[in-house]
């Protein structure tokens, strides 16, 4: 199972989550869990260092 890029929690099946390729480098898949996304928590791409959102 993938895990959230911000809190490292495993993404539960059926959770309202989002995944997308890093907006900057496009090579790393970013997964954000429902809570981190809801609270607007920051994420950092491990590939290129881009900080979102």
């Amino acid at each position: 199972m993938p895990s959230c890029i911000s809190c490292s929690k495993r993404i539960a099946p059926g959770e309202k989550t989002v995944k997308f390729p890093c907006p900057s480098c496009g090579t790393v898949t970013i997964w954000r869990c429902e809570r981190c996304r809801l609270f607007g928590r920051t994420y950092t791409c491990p590939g290129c260092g881009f900080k979102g959102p």
Partner: protein
Amino acid sequence: MDTQQSDTLLLPQEVLLSAGVHIGTRVKTKDMIPFIYKVRPDGLFVLDMDKMNERVKVAAKFISRMDISRVAVASSKRYGRLPVHKFCEVTGAHPLVARFTSGTFTNPTYSHYFEPVAVIVTDALADQQIVVEATAVGVPVIALCSTDNNLSNVDLIIPINNKGRRSLAIAYWLLARQLKRELKELTPEQEFSVSIDDFESTM
């Protein structure tokens, strides 16, 4: 003075300053602190133009890897409607400028059902219903954000004045031009065939 030292802006600083793309509001949210350059003596928070510039480039890169015909672009705000329309006309994205009906992304039996791969909103607060549905279907949300926005359910922000008429024209014009550059449909030296005026609401 609002000027920032920068030599890599996508448009001359005077053009950006006169359109007020950096002008925020008297409200600053915790989420937007990293994108705020300073507070003016009159209490208005000012956005960081270098970060705005960088984010326009990142957003264009991000969108350039998608099927643009399935990117929904929304503005419930009046001044944003024409810029959104023009952006979609130029790039092939899907405009959502009429009143948003719930179920648009979530109910396949609805006559105007649309299955987006990503959503761009002019204001995450004004376009809240669209953000809610994009979240429900798990697609990334790109949002133009001023100093008073919060980042709930937003995956990529573009810090820019999302209230002014001229600023909204510049925001969508810059994004369209940068997208064309990313797609190699336009070289950095080439002039964009549409003008900022074409993107500006007259109402």
